[in-house]
């Protein structure tokens, strides 16, 4: 399949290993990435907090650029960031609700010759994996099953709430997909209190103690549940859970040492890509347990 690909800002900034690992995984999943390199930041909810119209117009611009790719053969727009998914879906809900409002926004975009037409399909990589590629297909591609790897899912708020806007329901349990993917890759899903909670990142500059307390508590819960690592589709969560983990450990007064993987990295390990090619060496918390384990399995499985 071919997707209009929006990597987001953080995946090209402080978590560039995410962008790199997506690029490494895509061909193996037969996804052609057409990067939207002229598109702009989704606003992460902060621009909407300042001005809804500004956030809506900026995202309408990104959608319009994606629609140009869709008319040229891309199947849909894909992102790799929970926060982008949530912030963009929120703006899309307003843009799609009213033809009058859409016309105002399109008037602002007209200088650049862009126009957003309602109803774009914009999915996170996690949703594409389950809904478009399919878990059965994914299972057939696994070369190094994640046997004995105990993985805790960490979704990020923006991709699980509010459920009505994100079309999460019994027929489409998007808030259970991470567990389904971990299982399809051969791993064990760890049930712990923090999986659907907030990492605390949005208030890191406003109430640092509360922010780090959130990250530290969820990481600690994962440690107590005997997880080997966490996996997240959100690079902003990754910043608080990995980059800030030494500070979070100080805040909650305990050792954590919990590796946190980006979703494409976990998929990549199971598909047989080397940890280095997935950028695991760039993490603040060294994913030692994960890498030792995957190398052991590569040895054991041999030419499978």
């Amino acid at each position, binding site marked *: 399949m071919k997707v209009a690909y929006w990597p987001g800002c953080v995946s090209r900034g402080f978590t560039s290993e995410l962008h790199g690992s997506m690029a490494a995984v895509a061909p193996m999943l037969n996804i052609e990435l057409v990067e939207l390199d002229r598109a702009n930041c989704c606003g992460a909810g902060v621009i909407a*907090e300042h*001005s809804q119209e500004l956030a809506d*117009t900026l995202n309408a611009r990104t959608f319009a650029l994606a629609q140009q790719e869709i008319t040229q053969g891309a199947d849909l727009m894909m992102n790799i960031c929970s926060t982008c998914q949530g912030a963009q879906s929120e703006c899309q809900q307003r843009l799609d609700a009213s033809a009058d409002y859409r016309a105002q926004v399109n008037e602002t975009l007209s200088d650049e010759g862009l126009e957003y037409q309602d109803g774009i399909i914009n999915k996170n990589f996690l949703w594409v994996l389950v809904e478009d590629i399919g878990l059965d297909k994914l299972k057939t591609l696994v070369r190094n099953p994640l046997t004995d790897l105990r993985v805790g899912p960490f979704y990020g708020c923006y991709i699980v709430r509010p459920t009505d806007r994100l079309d999460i329901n019994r027929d489409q349990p998007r808030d259970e997909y991470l567990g389904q993917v971990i299982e399809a890759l051969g791993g064990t899903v760890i049930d712990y209190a923090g999986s659907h909670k907030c990492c605390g990142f949005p208030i890191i500059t406003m109430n640092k103690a509360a922010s780090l307390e959130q990250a530290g508590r969820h990481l600690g819960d994962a440690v107590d549940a005997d997880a080997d690592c966490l996996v997240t589709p959100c690079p902003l969560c990754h910043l608080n859970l990995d980059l800030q983990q030494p500070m979070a450990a100080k805040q909650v007064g305990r050792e954590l040492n919990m590796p946190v993987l980006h979703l494409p990295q976990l998929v990549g390990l199971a598909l047989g890509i080397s940890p280095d090619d997935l950028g695991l060496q760039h993490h603040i918390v060294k994913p030692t347990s994960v890498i030792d384990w995957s190398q052991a399995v590569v040895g054991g499985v041999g030419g499978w």
Partner: protein
Amino acid sequence: MAEFKLKIRRYDPQSGAAPYWDEHTVELEPHRSVLEGILQARNEKDGSIGVRCSCRAAICGSCGVRVNGKPGLACHTHLDDALASAGEDGVIEVEPMGNMPIIKDLIVDMDAVHWKKIQRVTPWLIGKEPVPEREYIVSRESMIDVTQSMACIQCGACVSDCLSMEVDPLFIGPAALAKTYRFVGDPRDAAHEQRLKDLGEDKHGIYDCTHCFKCIEACPKGVAPMNQIMRLRRIAGNDFHIKDRNNGERHEMAFVKNIEKNGILHEADLLPDSYGGKFHPRAVPELISSLPIVMTALLRRKMTPAKALLHPHRAPDGVKKIYEIVEGRDERNEFNLYISGTDADNEPNPEVAAAAEVAEPAAVAPDGSEGSSA
């Protein structure tokens, strides 16, 4: 009639014993409520089960509990729906709400947390002077807007699930902040700026919310507290330029300007700018405290000095144009779905239109004439 298994969390803090689960089977029609199930268990099996309820019709807000981990009103949750969201064992779990101390079993201390916070935000209208001789006319839009927060029945479901309050019990929280918007959004209130300044001074005020959407999901009445908090931030920052003690407004403006300049986020600038700029006294301790992490990140080549210090990305002209037009407007253009509804909502309902057509002959006067003078 069908059988339902209820697992109720029991705890009596005065007994000194630890909390435990208590399972009862009740027999009720599937469309009956979880509350009726709890009451049947109490009336027929164990009279010591503590539960608070009154109206049983989702309007008094007394029976807030967690059903299968999700907060809501026990009287507003059907047993069959609860069973559908139960675990594989088919047992419906009922627990007391979170973030509040437990008095007994399913009864939490609303006074200790929820009502204290409501009282904190001056929950009454401070009228404008002079008092108008006749009615104070409020526009239809403003009225509909505040009815969203007025729909709150003080059940505490949002407080129960607030993830910020979980780590910062001093956070004023979703219910009380939605109540604040009920007055800040009301054109008859005279104290908008004072209310927002007060919340800006409080380090546990409007900028302590993490955008987690839990309260929106929890509310049984569609109040969407987080949306009201975002409106409070918008009014505090844009209309009154209030400099809060959390650097909230500074962070917001740093973010907005960062995208105007770079098109995509340049994180290395955002942190210092959120504290007032790289050399600001507020920023220096923050930057020093993050030095060890910066060093590790550089060593692991997570970031490179060039990437952090240079600005390789410039905003496309299209982005600059959007800022010029939208930020240049005299008035904020805010499309509020709660007020306007969607195009689909506003389409004339064919059934209503057909009914109106049938009803039209009734306009004929009783004497058979089509006179309009009546």
